[in-house]
């Protein structure tokens, strides 16, 4: 991986974190209402997978999708405006936080009913396969979603018809307050895909390089007509399920352990490793040193100053997005009706056949 790409991934992870923290702040201040499901802790998943995707690929996501949208290239302004319910939002203020859609960027939407992303992805992939295009459909979902019937139904059809789907399970171990051992008989999610003959792999979702490598490989197979592929990415959300959830069901030690392994900190650590200080070298074990050394030789270099610059850059972008959202106009009822009738004018519906 070259220096620019590594820098771009780190930049997106920092953007994602800054965006979500700004959203949390907007919610706390009463500027944003409704359910707000945030992504901190899981950045390596979206960034690793979507940096491996091509612009021609399609993305289907859940209600926890701000970061997927952001990394996919939807401007922060338009996402933030949607969270604020403004007409300048990517869904014109009609969808909200859980329903970001952007046809031009092939972002097929955020879905709030758990288990809906599977059939949508299935249909999109069917259309792609039908047209014999070298495109892939990337389908995101949580560990809780794999117990919905649509998961099993869709995996079977995807495998049966060799549809071009990359299934990406964001396994953060929780279905709101229910831990995975209490909601799934098989807790290694990737094994379920094996039951449908879909090649599946479990990858450390806190390690953006590992995620990226696995996604790239899987997407290559999808595009070359090998049929669906499946990745289980083990990750963790630092916050509650949504802003309304204090997450008191999770032991603190668990949160602390994952935070110690923060994907952004880890990515920075990797990025910085081109010039480890003498202290840093001394502080880590032999394996890590050799790992760092290999890494430094093969990969590019970033230094602390550049990372600080990146942080400032993304913060400025997010601040601008918040300003934009706050200053944008609200839609009125006429906007709602015209969106509703956009592709289905009443006069047309009532026309009689010739």
């Amino acid at each position, binding site marked *: 991986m070259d220096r620019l790409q590594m820098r771009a991934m780190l930049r997106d992870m920092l953007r994602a974190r800054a965006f979500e923290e700004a959203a949390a702040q907007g919610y706390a201040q009463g500027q944003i*209402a*409704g*359910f707000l499901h945030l992504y901190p802790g899981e950045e390596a998943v979206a960034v690793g997978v979507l940096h491996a995707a091509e612009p021609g690929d399609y993305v289907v996501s859940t209600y926890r999708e701000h970061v997927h949208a952001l990394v996919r290239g939807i401007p922060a302004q338009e996402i933030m405006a*949607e969270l604020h*319910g*403004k007409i300048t939002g990517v*869904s014109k*203020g*009609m*969808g*909200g*936080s*859980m*329903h970001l859609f952007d046809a031009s960027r092939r972002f097929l939407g955020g*879905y*709030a*009913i*758990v*288990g809906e992303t599977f059939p949508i992805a299935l249909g999109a992939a069917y259309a792609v396969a039908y047209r014999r295009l070298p495109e892939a459909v990337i389908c995101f979902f949580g560990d*809780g*979603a794999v*117990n*919905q*019937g649509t998961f099993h139904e869709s995996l079977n059809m995807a495998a049966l018809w060799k549809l071009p789907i990359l299934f990406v399970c964001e396994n953060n171990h929780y*279905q*709101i*307050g*229910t831990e995975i051992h*209490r*909601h*799934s008989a098989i807790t290694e999610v990737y094994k379920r895909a094996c039951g449908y003959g879909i090649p599946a792999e479990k990858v450390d979702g806190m390690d953006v390089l590992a995620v990226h490598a696995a996604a790239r490989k899987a997407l290559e197979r999808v595009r070359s007509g090998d049929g669906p592929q499946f990745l289980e990415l083990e990750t963790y959300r630092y916050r509650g399920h949504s802003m309304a959830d204090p997450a008191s*069901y999770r032991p603190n030690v668990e949160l602390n352990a994952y935070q110690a392994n923060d994907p952004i900190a880890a990515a920075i650590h990797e990025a910085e490793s081109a010039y480890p200080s003498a202290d840093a070298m001394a502080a880590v074990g032999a394996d890590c040193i050799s790992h760092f050394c290999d890494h430094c030789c093969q990969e590019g270099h970033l230094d602390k100053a550049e990372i600080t610059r990146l942080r400032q850059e993304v913060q400025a972008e997010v601040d601008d997005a918040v300003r934009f959202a706050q200053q944008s106009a*609200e*839609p*009125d*009822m006429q906007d*709602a*009706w015209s969106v*509703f009738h956009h592709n289905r004018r009443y006069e047309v519906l009532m026309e009689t056949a010739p």
Partner: protein
Amino acid sequence: MSDLFYWQSLNRAMDAEMAADETVITLGEDVGLYGGTYRVTEGLMAKYGEWRVRDTPISENSFTGLGVGAAMLGLRPVVEIMTINFALFAIDAIINMAAKIPFMSGGQFPMPLTIRMPGGIARQLGAQHSQRLEHTLMNVPGLRIAVPATPQDAYWQLRQAIHSDDALIVLEHELLYFSKGDVNEKAVAPPIHQALLRRSGRDVTCIAYSRMVILALEAAEFLAKEGIEMTVIDLRSLAPIDWDTCVQSVQQTHHCLIVEEDCRFAGAGAELSATLQERCFYFLDRPIQRVAGLDIPTPFNGKLEAASIPRTEDIISAVRQMLGTPGGQS
């Protein structure tokens, strides 16, 4: 008599029934350790254990179906569906199984199943999380639907639902869980499907259910200052409907306004209006009117969301218009 939140009275009802009858079990997402999304099952798992209070995976179709199967063997399951929006995945279990098995089996299998779920528009949850499905459920022979608007009714009607040998849906409302009211746990409950007069007035009959009852009462209060006396009927049940209470009142006031949060097209109001005009035609001074939700998916934007469902002002102006008293003089 105690002052309880709506969710607390549901919690007390659950506790009372589970203590009294060990065939009562409950299941749903996060009902156990978490205590329920709206706290309705709080404390029950610690008290009654995992086999009676079961946290489920996100598998609405099958865990609602589980409720049906368990009811066929004589348990009294109370299935909690986190919100009505997720019941769309369970619609086969509800409509094809729970509602029909008692009939298809020639009466061999009663269906002592209760399905609890909140519906309605909360605050800016987007179109998929802000809808009402009573129109769908009302149309299914074999389902009974209670729609408690007060903590007292929540307590009574949930207990009565659990006692019932038919499939019974207790349709709660997301914005009512934190409303408060007096609950008398000892008082004798009216029949589960009986409508109640919340206020009596000679000029017009307003029929509402669930959260809309509260808006109707606000409107009645306001209209009283203008000299308009409005009767407010809280339906409490959508299937069956207590027609006699409605007919009697409309025969006295000669005016009828129906208020529903659900979309107007083919909704509960349409059924009420059709049947009441059949039964009260010669008593009516004006056509029956409806105040209802707009026929549009709920917009996310807060102002539009509020504009898409009835507001107190909408009820007030509909009444004024019907009585021909624009601008407040009576």
